[in-house]
């Protein structure tokens, strides 16, 4: 666990309660799980109205926005890998056995809630728990979850939009409580940038675009569908990378420009968060800016990323 330094909180903290709404946090964590018979009762208690169907849950969490830190902060843009191992190590550093999916949104929120609940009044213990919570929040939640929730609010139907809004407010209060981190976590500092297709090949470029830690952009199937509709292109059903490659092959310049616009839009979202979330949001905003500039440059050059397949060695993502 790294020692993160914090800038002084920028806002008046007098309205921050002494402890967060821990049980509500746990309820919201549960609601990210597939609906079960108990789900309706839990949802009702949280004032979120009628429980969603399994299909609605599947659309948000299985098809659009994957609730795993590793997808969004891993250089591969996929579940598992080094990013998940890092989270497992974090659980172990706290003296806990990591669960099967230690980077799942629900697991992280439940862990955060536990770190509040288990705090004892002794100063030494309290300090350890506070440090543990700060590390969890700054290193493993801040780099992806606020933006993830913003995207859920944009894309999901009523129930999950409300869910994301509530959770965003709790996290914002927690960020205000600890103040913005003024130093990047090590794994972000070491995260590779977006590959340039002119040098690294199209495959690596596409994979990098879909990894938020490299591109600064969280792209969903819905985003790709929107681009396809705007440009009147055919959307191929399949994984995001396959669909994106298909769009680029139909009209590379238009897709690059549309993608660049999305990168600028999401970059602006990151920038709005920097006061509260500090260095992590600044980092993502910069990545999104760089991505937009590269895409605009490629569009100006009329470069087709899918036309010139790179060598296999150059294409290895994250190398």
């Amino acid at each position, binding site marked *: 666990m790294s020692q993160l330094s914090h800038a002084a909180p920028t806002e008046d903290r007098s309205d921050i*309660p002494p402890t967060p*709404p821990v*049980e509500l946090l746990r309820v919201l964590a549960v609601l990210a*799980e597939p609906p*079960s018979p108990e789900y309706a009762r839990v949802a009702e*208690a949280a004032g979120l109205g009628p429980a969603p169907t399994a299909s609605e849950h599947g659309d948000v969490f299985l098809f659009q926005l994957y609730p795993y830190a590793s997808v969004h902060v891993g250089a591969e843009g996929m579940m598992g890998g080094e990013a998940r191992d890092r989270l497992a190590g974090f659980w172990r550093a706290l003296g806990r056995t990591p669960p099967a999916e230690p980077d799942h949104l*629900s697991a992280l929120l439940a862990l955060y809630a536990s770190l509040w609940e288990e705090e004892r009044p002794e100063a030494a213990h309290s300090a350890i728990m506070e440090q543990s919570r700060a590390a969890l929040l700054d290193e493993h939640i801040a780099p992806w979850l606020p933006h993830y929730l913003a995207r859920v609010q944009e894309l999901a139907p009523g129930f999950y939009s409300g869910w994301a809004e509530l959770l965003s407010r709790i996290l914002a*209060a927690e960020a205000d409580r600890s103040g913005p981190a003024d130093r990047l976590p090590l794994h972000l500092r070491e995260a590779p940038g977006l590959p340039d297709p002119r040098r690294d090949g199209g495959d690596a470029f596409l994979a990098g675009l879909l990894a938020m830690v490299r591109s600064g952009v969280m792209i969903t199937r819905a985003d790709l569908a929107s681009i396809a509709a705007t440009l009147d292109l055919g959307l191929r059903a399949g994984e995001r990378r396959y669909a994106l490659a298909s769009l680029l092959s139909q009209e590379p310049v238009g897709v690059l420009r549309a993608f660049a616009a999305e990168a600028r839009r999401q970059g602006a979202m990151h920038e709005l968060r920097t006061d509260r979330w500090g260095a992590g949001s600044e980092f993502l905003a910069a990545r999104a800016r760089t991505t937009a500039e590269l895409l605009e440059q490629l569009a100006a050059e009329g470069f087709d990323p899918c036309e010139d397949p790179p060598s296999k060695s150059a294409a290895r993502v994250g190398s």
Partner: protein
Amino acid sequence: MTDLNELNRRVSAAKAEVEARGETFYPGASRVHLASFPPKERWNDWVELDSKSWPNRVEKRYMLVPTTCFNCESACGLLAYVDRDTLQVRKFEGNPEHPGSRGRNCAKGPATINQITDPDRILYPLKRAGARGQGKWERVSWDEALDDIAARIRRAMEEERHEQVMYHVGRPGEDGYTTRMLAAWAVDGHNSHTNVCSSGARAGYHWWMGMDRPSPDFANAKVIVLVSSHLETGHYFNPHAQRIIEGKKGGAKLIVLDTRLSNTATHADHWLSPYPGSEASIFLAIANWMIQERKYDREFVRRWWNWQEYMEAVQGEQSATFERFEQVLRETYSEYTFEFAARESGLEEDVLREVAGVVSTAGTRLATHNWRSAGSGNLGGWQVARTLTLLNALLGALATEGGTFPNSWNKFTPKPPRLPHQRPRRWNEVLWPREYPLALMEMSFLMPHLMRDQDAYVDVYFTRVYNPVWTNPDGFSWIEMLTDESKIGLHIAQTPTWNETAYFADYVLPMGHASERHDLTSYEQYDGQFIGFRQPVLRTARERLGEQITDTRQVNPGEVWEENEFWIELTWRIDPDGSLGIRQFFESREHPGEKMTVDEYYGWIFDNSVPGLPEAAAAQGISPLEYMRRFGAFEVASKVGQVYEQAVSDSELEDVRVDEMGRVFTRAASPPSPKAPGGTKIDPDEEGRRRVGVRVDGEILRGWPTPSGKLEFWSRTLAEWGWPELAIPTYVKSHVHRDNLEDDQMPMITTFRVPVQIHTRSANSKWLDEIAHTNPLWIHPTDAARVGVEKTGDLVRVQTDIGYFVLKAWITEGIRPGVVACSHHMGRWKPEGQEGQRMGMMTVALDQQGSEWGLTPKQRGGPFSSSDPDTLRVWWTDVGVHQNLTHAVHPDPISGQHCWHQAVRVGPAQLGDSQGDVFVDTRESRAMYEKWLEMTRSADDYSPDGTRRPWWMLRPVRPERDAYKLPVKTEPATV
């Protein structure tokens, strides 16, 4: 905008409301609640994805039926996952409703699935077809077996030979059923294994508190002292281990005494690795330091120790002040310095001083525990528990939050229906010989020798899920006894699986595993009282689906039968017309003249003897029996607290008399109790008033169930029955003390378990066997070099007093130099030509030449073909060595505990030796028995009142008072 804190309050309130209804707020196992379980509302129809269908998502529907693990005595709660399509059990997981285990299990719980599907298990009643031990068996019907056994027992009863019927039990795994049955039969034949298990420590506790087991409140302790391997391997280890860890999380300091680097030692803040048998010296040094430095609770000692009795009886001071007692206490214990303890234990004085400092900070939150370990390893091992409890008694940390409770206050054994009013009339001298009048439990492991001394005969001998040939020391003497039909008339082995004792039986009767039998359990695992229910889960599952099951054999594999129904049926066949007066106790109350059913037996208990259960069941709209079948456990009370400080109510005080010791007697009858009768028996006063409590500082309080009503720092019982020099907590040099060993001998520790095994009971589990299947000799590198053992895996020969065994060495720094260790687990075997278990068992040749016995492995473990394809994947062949065969009996002359530690000579294996070889001369074992017998002080010579045993002391199936009287010396002893 919704206020988040207000919303949080609403959510918390909703959760509290749901949980108050006994329901689960959150969904089942999830990432959010890592230790959560299927919500109990959905146990009847629980859906999971079928792992074997992966990657296809195939849903499996289960009925979750609770039961109780039958492996170790922790009796943790299990949930059987019954496949609703096939009505077979697919797996076992933890029962979150069980207050002791709280849904958590060790490896042995889930491994129950291996046991019930074991391809070699015994499925039908078998009768021997050749000579006893010859290995020829024929399948018989239950009717044939029952009629034969019943006829013999009836004949014994008609001829007043009740003591020739004996029931020998290992870990009972149940409360009250069998002792009730033996009382109904009026048979003094209850023979437990306890003297090879925990009697040593239990005797130490008994003479302090009147109760014989500790129940530490680990979770709330400030300091924990363990003399056993509690984490992973100790007694009640799963319920205790989780609470020890909770205590540690709460900041408790953990002090562990273990000569080995055990799992528990690895978690300790202070690991002490003493020379075996010196543990009491450490506790005495800590106690002395606390006494000299006045770091003890003077008020507690003044109020609750029997110091006045001690001062009067021992010091001859009738009106001594407490200050005078303190002065005597300081003088008495002053010899137990840290220097003394360091010399005895081999530990450094500074370490002992530091540990004493930690203990003294505990206040009333000192949780201590000794079960086996040093208590069962050493001559005088009972003083380990007695000196350990001295620390609690000095700090007042008894029955306090975070302290140590006596078992009876943390245990609930409900009263059964038709409680027998009769008791055995004849004393069983084979089990309770006069030489051991203070033995806490039956002298079971001496049976071959006592039978010979007394020329005794046992007509009907049950070994019930017990394996004395393998478990007890001196197993070849057991074989000699069991094969002698002039000693054992009929031997019935009740066992789910083959064992070394069953080979020498006349009948082998298949009994059920955890999911195939009814039992009621309650154990002291925290400051609370609960009952756990074991049930045949397929019976319950089918009944939920509307079937009527009248006999558990209808759902169990083969003709496996549960014991409850078996004993009811056997009793009816012994006494078909009721003329013997025993059938009445197994007759239905609802339908007189008909057999009592298990539903009626347990239904009556749950309706009438478990406070709070009827109300809890009614809240759910079900009967108490249905409640227990559905949830498997019920907590009767929690936070029981300091019972001894409770004031006796006025309604119990009538024509009160207070004697000179402050004991209070009353004419008021005992209030009715839902608990089964038991515990110590304190005589009434001369005018027939019962003792109700003690007067302390003018108040009449409940006190302790000891003769004095106080904590017995000084035991009048020990003093009057021949042991005045050991009547206070003091030090006894072990039989493996350095002074008692030859130069080339070392002490060997044998009492520790392998974490995932439980004696012989779990050996038919393939999962557990794969993890742990052998028992090498732990030896320190310096010792290995000294005796010429070069590397781990080399064969060594270990020479005991009566023979030797051969095994592999494990050279490790995890044991104290100068000491070796070998777990008593492993080394399972079957004789050539016998049917039997193949998993984890070797096939051996037994060679007897007069008193000399050899055991030579012919085929070790390895793969074998069976209905389970996994058995072809067995990759290990080393299944260890049966070392207990080479142990002579070492009965402690006071507690009766077998003292397990051995004095051994270790050297490289000799020409012709092979792994697993055993040699024993039973003539030598007989000589050792006689040598230890010389240490005894017989009731014939020392009984202060002409009885065989102090009446007040605990005793299973207590006989009538008259049977306690010693026979007139001119008459032959009753056998």
